[in-house]
């Protein structure tokens, strides 16, 4: 997914014909958005909803932007910024959406994949506070650069780096302790 491949030409195509290029955008970056949402929330159904809402918000936003702005978009980081907003709304229960219940801590557990992956995935959700979980997933699951993560989180690069490092340390401790500590999942 480096520059020069499909993502490289997508902003241009979206600026020219949003509707025609939008399917390819979802196909190209859907996995990244879904993975982020799944690893942040630990819930497959929630992740699918977050991914869908992310793309719908993106569609509306691109429709509103002028062509020059669309061509400048760094799509992956931009989509993940939207996804993070949607995820946070979902967890906290946005005030303007009284019908939506925030996710309860006990829903935030995944059970899929191999045993080891399973433990790791649920430990991320249960043991890491959101502040560490978000950068850990962006950096180590999705492989984004710290500069990109700093942009998504709107925090200095050094802060983001430190939070990710603390997250990794905490993960290591939790996995050697056997029992994941259900700490600070709720705020």
């Amino acid at each position, binding site marked *: 997914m480096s520059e020069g491949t499909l993502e490289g030409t997508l902003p241009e195509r979206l600026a020219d014909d949003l*509707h025609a290029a*939008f*399917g390819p955008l*979802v*196909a190209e970056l*859907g*996995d990244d*958005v*879904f*993975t982020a949402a*799944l*690893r942040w929330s630990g819930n497959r159904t929630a992740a*699918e909803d977050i*991914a*869908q*809402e992310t*793309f*719908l*918000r993106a*569609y*509306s*936003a691109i*429709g*509103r932007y002028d062509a020059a702005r669309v061509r400048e978009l760094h799509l992956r980081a931009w989509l993940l910024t939207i996804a993070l907003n*949607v995820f946070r*709304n979902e967890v906290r229960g*946005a005030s*303007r*959406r*009284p*019908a*939506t219940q925030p996710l309860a801590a006990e829903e935030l557990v995944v059970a899929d*994949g191999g045993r*080891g*992956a399973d*433990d*790791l*995935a649920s430990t*991320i959700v249960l043991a890491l506070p959101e502040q560490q979980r978000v950068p*850990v*997933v962006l950096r*180590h*699951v*999705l*492989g984004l650069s710290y500069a990109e993560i700093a942009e998504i989180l709107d925090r200095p690069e050094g802060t983001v780096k430190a939070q990710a490092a603390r997250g*990794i340390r905490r*993960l*290591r401790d939790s*996995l050697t302790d056997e029992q994941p500590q259900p700490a600070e999942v709720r705020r």
Partner: protein
Amino acid sequence: MNDIETALGDLREKAPPRLTDRVMRAVEAADDYVEIPGPRGPLYIAFNETGISCVDAAGEGPEAFEEYFVGRFGRVLRAASAPPRGLAHALETGDGRKLRYDLRGLTEFEVAVLRKALEIPKGEVRSYGWIAREIGRPKAVRAVGSALGHNPVPVVIPCHRVVRSDGMIGNYALGAPMKRELLDTEGVDVEGIEQLAASGVRYVGSDTTHVFCVPTCHDARRVTERHRVTFRNERDAAAHGYRPCKHCRPAEERSA
């Protein structure tokens, strides 16, 4: 798990194949929307072939409206050039009964509550209990409150004209001050009705017609001071030989 960082890299997942389909279907099902001046700041109004689907009176701009809409309905919005027919007139008269609405996704009960709220004329208010009784669910007063709280088309369907059964103005999804402002703009004497309520008065009657009304009823407001009588409850009114007004229907008509 020695190499946590490598193990984390294996946690990438493929999105379900239906994601693209779901997104594109939602994009096809886009609603149109317009920004028009409302009684208190701009209103964003979304509509589709079925009717008006959503109104945002929060006044936080088009971006906030689009996000709210996507989150609530799972469809996207596109800016339209013209509002749905009859909307401007309905806002002017405060009477939205002739407009078409898209209330899919609401329960039958919620729809009944909103349809009933549409019948409350501009400048008047009714209570949650009144709606509950009128739709044949006299005990569902609280449920009426939540149904109004979920009204997807506030202002146009005037849930702000529904007040507490004790006569106080009460809450509103967009905040109590907004509710008072909307009512004030429509000519309701907000402080006056709360003072009346605080003094225990629920109904107003005329000693010439022997009819009693809710205080904001058009007929009640025409009663001159000299002929005006007040009641604390409908039993009180009935005991004095008064019958409920046929327009504001303050109480069940008693079979004589």
